[in-house]
């Protein structure tokens, strides 16, 4: 077992253990109904978390996630619900706006050497402010397309529902894994997070990769906003406040190092499903308020960071030992 897979394995073990606990208490966890709902309910922020995984692997951070989701929701509601735009055209416009927004943040991070924390914090305020400027009301979307999408469901024999949102989540998951491991862009992201100075000397297009990473994150965040808009059939500028923190927590619990260079898209997916499972359990149980989820996130987050710290310091001791034992000379 390679030590680089240990955090991922831990994530998986925690998920399986929690799921089994939930199943032993509520047998409905064995049904496609719960599985389908888990995928549906967590799709929107799971999609954003996949984008965030790339950002954190590259050694950065994106705090604008919650605001961008709110802005997307308000924009769609306003254009489709009030101005009668075609939904698909609206999505194309908002995805373009979002991608440019992310690319601009990446541009400032790379060319002006401003910390990502500051740039994306500005992005957070900007996007939230824009959402409020567009509308402070909750706007309903009443459009046949939205009805069609919500009817687009595969029903399992046990009446479990595989929705459009769930499908989108899984699609983005597969695309994310492919991007991360099988394209030069993906490998450049890992290189950038592993050692950005070395990446530059090794010929990695550092500027382009940084811009693309934030563009990708914002693109996926807007997509998350669209998915949320489709399920809520409304737009509200007050939603998803602080969501970026849940997203970052999921990425870290999924085994991605906050310092960059190491991480897996699938780990983020498992972490999102883990948190979703806890949420569902708390809701079904009813004796505890669902806000306990925050406490659990805190505990999990801390445990995972502590574990990573432990692993990396153990590895340093090990490699120092290996260096002491001199390898034989080539003859």
């Amino acid at each position, binding site marked *: 077992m*390679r030590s*680089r897979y240990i955090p991922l394995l831990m994530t998986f073990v925690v998920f399986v253990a929690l799921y089994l606990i939930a199943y032993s208490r509520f047998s409905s966890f064995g049904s496609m109904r719960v599985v389908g709902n888990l995928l549906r309910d967590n799709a929107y922020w799971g999609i954003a978390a996949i984008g965030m995984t790339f950002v954190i692997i590259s050694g950065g951070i994106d705090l604008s996630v919650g605001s961008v989701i709110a802005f997307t929701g308000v924009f769609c509601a306003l254009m489709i619900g009030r101005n009668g735009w075609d939904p698909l055209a609206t999505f194309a416009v908002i995805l373009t706006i979002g991608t440019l927004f992310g690319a601009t943040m990446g541009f400032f991070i790379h060319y002006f050497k401003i910390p990502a924390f500051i740039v994306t914090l500005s992005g957070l305020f900007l996007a939230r402010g824009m959402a409020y400027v567009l509308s402070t009301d909750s706007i309903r979307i009443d459009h046949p397309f939205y009805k069609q999408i919500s009817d687009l469901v595969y029903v399992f024999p046990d009446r479990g529902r595989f929705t459009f949102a769930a499908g989108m989540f899984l699609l983005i998951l597969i695309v994310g894994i*492919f991007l991360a*491991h*099988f*394209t*030069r862009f993906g*490998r*450049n992201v*890992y*290189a950038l*997070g*592993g*050692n950005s*100075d*070395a*990446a*530059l*000397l*090794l*010929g*990695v297009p550092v500027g382009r990769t940084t811009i693309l990473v934030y563009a990708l994150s914002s693109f996926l965040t807007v997509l998350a906003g669209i998915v949320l808009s489709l399920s809520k059939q409304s737009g509200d500028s007050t939603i998803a406040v602080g969501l970026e923190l849940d997203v970052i927590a999921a990425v870290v619990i999924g085994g991605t190092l906050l310092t960059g*260079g*190491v991480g897996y898209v699938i780990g983020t997916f498992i972490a999102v499903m883990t948190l979703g499972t806890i949420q569902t359990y708390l809701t079904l149980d009813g004796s505890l308020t669902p806000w306990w989820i925050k406490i659990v996130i805190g505990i999990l987050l801390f445990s995972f960071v502590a574990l990573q710290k432990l692993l990396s310091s153990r*590895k340093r001791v090990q*490699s120092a030992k*290996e*260096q*002491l034992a*001199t*390898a034989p*000379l*080539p*003859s």
Partner: protein
Amino acid sequence: MNTSGQETKPLLEVKGLSKVFPSTVALSEVDFTLYPGDVHVLVGENGAGKSTLIKLITGVHHKDGGVILLEGKPIEPRSPRHAQELGISTVYQEVNLIPTMSVAENIFLGRQPMRFGMINMRAINQQAKQLLRGFGLDIDVTRNLSSYSVAIQQIIAIVRGVDLSAKVLILDEPTSSLDRHEVERLFSVIRSLKQRGIGIILITHFLDQVFEIADRITVLRNGHKVGEHRLAELTKVQLITEMLGKELTAALDNKQVTAREDGASTKPFLEVRGFARHGMIEPFNLVIRQGEIVGLAGLLGSGRTEIAHLIFGIDQNDQGEAFVKGEQVNLSSPRKAIQYGFGLCPEDRKVEGIIGELSVRENIILALQARMGWFNYLSRQKQDELATQMIEALHIVTPDAEKPVKELSGGNQQKVILARWLVSNPEFLILDEPTRGIDVGAHAEIIQIIKRLAQEGKAMMIISSELAEIVDYSDRVVVLRDRKKLGELEGNEINESTIMQAIAAN
């Protein structure tokens, strides 16, 4: 082996290369020629211009004069990446690869073989394995780079560089953190590169290694080329005198042994036996007596600073034992060393010494306050008193004690650091290059202060690249080369020539 360079055409030729920085001429009309299959070693002390020359060739800096010819054609490298495209690869001391990625991925980053629009990981692993085998390295290429030793990482970096069709390979102090076996391994790789006709520029501080691997040696000093030699033509003493810019004269300006001896006690303050740390310094014994000044002499990278760091607990010894006033002690951290009465003025005062934003007073009381504990607060009155006292005693030129230290001249900053340790009244002071980068007047003053402190009974250990200075104040001189203590000179044995000969001794 292709050492009969004259008949073959030069691979890389540099003529009249100059570089001027705002305050200094870093490189002045330097000529340098590299033949294919040759190992050309660049040597020189701090500020000699080695790294400037390399940075001009690799496009990190841009030249102010002269020409660079690669295979007879003039080139203008714009960036390290551009230089690499032209066929000039560089491997630095601190390996510039991605520690969190696999060995194979590091070798093929940015040029991965693709299949069906996807990265072909199998091909990457196979090709990397084959490539490394060609250099006698049979390792698991799917493991992370960071799981291998620095020596292996360096070989991997070289292999990557060479595989990018390098004609010229620059190795910038590749052996600094390697042990003897690892150096052997690296050298065997270098020898196989020679056979492929690659020209190698090697920067190293290790004289023995120079004589082991070099075909040709260029000596730089203060931005000028002072000599170019075929290895066979050169002796170690010659090389050292050229590097230091001194003449070997028979017993001139011998140290005058004065009545200083009376003041010096013979009681050892510190004694270390068989002190060593793997990869840093080989085992050495050292005694430092109260009221005695011990100078550490050697070239850059000879292990002088390493000894200071080991004794002060910045790095921990993995062998040997230490005694302070006859009692065995454990020098495992600077905190402990300070408790035993040690003080250290580090080499690079900008990085390790002063805190520029703080005032002269605050900088002076820093170590004392740390030693007393932060809850045992020094009264402001006491602080002012100490600061004023030190400003007077050391002639620190500052309008008042509240001036931020960064606004003082280099010499006065150095005095502030000295003052910091003096107020905490250490029994043993280590000074690492106390006179570097300060003007002549301050230079003389600091040397006076050093001598006075010894007369007051403090044990002193001083590292300096200025041989004349070491000869001036040392009661004893410890001679180092290639991370090894070679011996000691005492009393009237001490002069510049004996020191240089001792450094060169076999």
